[in-house]
């Protein structure tokens, strides 16, 4: 019986050493759960994350030249909060001319879009009076989102112009 006990202890020691090397199934479960809950809590599906990643690439490409495939966008636990971590491998900073050109193109596109949406609004107003209220609400919310972008763009325009002068 003493021998058996001794044998068990030795076996137990080696088993312990084995489990120390590998991640325990409990830790695997805990880590998988944490990741999946982060996604659940934000309502961001993998498709939406990919779309967000692509839009980030599009937005940032105006200012820097980067490795588009290597841009990583992940949700991570940062203490109590969930953080959106963005890692961008920059190849080189774009020069002023390039940035200016990209921004001008962007402004042109935006102006064209606005024109199109104005025309669409006029059409819908003609179609029905009841829906007018809804349209106004939607327009307001869209503007709210776009405003900060516009401001930053204007600022950038001014600074780049100043520098060229």
């Amino acid at each position, binding site marked *: *019986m*003493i021998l058996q*006990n001794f044998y068990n202890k030795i076996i137990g020691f080696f088993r312990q050493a084995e*489990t120390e090397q590998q991640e*325990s*199934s*409990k*830790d695997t*479960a*805990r880590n*998988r*759960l*944490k990741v*999946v*809950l982060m996604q*659940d*809590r934000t309502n961001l599906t993998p498709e939406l994350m990919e779309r967000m990643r692509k839009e980030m690439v599009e937005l940032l490409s105006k200012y820097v030249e980067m490795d588009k495939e290597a841009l990583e966008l992940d949700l991570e636990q940062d203490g*109590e909060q969930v953080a959106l971590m963005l890692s961008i491998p920059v190849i080189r900073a774009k020069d002023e001319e390039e940035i200016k050109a990209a921004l001008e193109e962007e402004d042109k596109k935006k102006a064209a879009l606005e024109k199109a949406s104005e025309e669409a609004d006029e059409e819908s107003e003609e179609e029905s009076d009841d829906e007018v209220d809804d349209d106004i609400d939607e327009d307001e919310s869209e503007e709210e989102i776009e405003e900060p972008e516009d401001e930053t763009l204007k600022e950038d325009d001014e600074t780049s112009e100043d520098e060229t002068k």
Partner: protein
Amino acid sequence: MSGRVIVITSGKGGVGKTTTNANIGTALARMGKKVVMIDTDLGLRNLDLLLGLENRIVYTIVDVVEERCKLKQALVKDKKNPNLCLLAAAQTRDKSAVTQEQLKEICEKLQKDFDFILVDCPAGIEQGFQNAVAGASEAIVVTTPEMSAVRDADRIIGLLEAKEEIKSYKLLLNRVRPNLIKSNDMMSVDDVVEILSAELIGIIPEDTGIITSTNKGEPIVNDEKSLAGQAYNNVARRIIGEDVPFLNLDEPKGVVAKVKKFFSGLMGKEK
């Protein structure tokens, strides 16, 4: 008298909502509180079985709602404890037979005569859940230390937090297996509490006694030797505001375990 309405919910099925309901209800009644349990799992009723009351049900909650009987007529008294009543679910109808408003009204009426109204919620997050939660101001979220149960509990907690009527919710961790936790094969109580960041109201160990007590239709809190029974009793005491420490589940239980511990202690000394 204005009783407390507590909904017992989980999201995932099979984690022990109904068992929890039957045991907490029985434990509270044993402490002299007037308790009524409402089974809202229309079409899949089981609370009557766990309490051994399946042969006594004449009217169900649907009969009350459709005015075939008075609310008091539909309350089935427990065999042993006159403080305990059950309002059974209908077995032949679906979740749409009772609305949120109707359930709220029933809870409000029962609050006048009872200290506690325990609402047994069906699994899922659809209408059955919405109905069960409608009349409650407190919630107990039952989960087990398994990934799927914890994930579903997280979803439920999110939904409960969005409800203004729910003033507080607490977590009950069921079917805990200390041996598996020790060998790092099951998430620990701390892991689950950290992940869900919710306040704990009970830790119930896995206990084969639950199966036999269900077979007999007698809640395990009536068996004072059972560890799970003690744990459920402690939950009931915490509900009424007592400060009860959580059971130490690491201690070996049962004669065999004790003898083993004794001998392993001897062996250790010999060396």
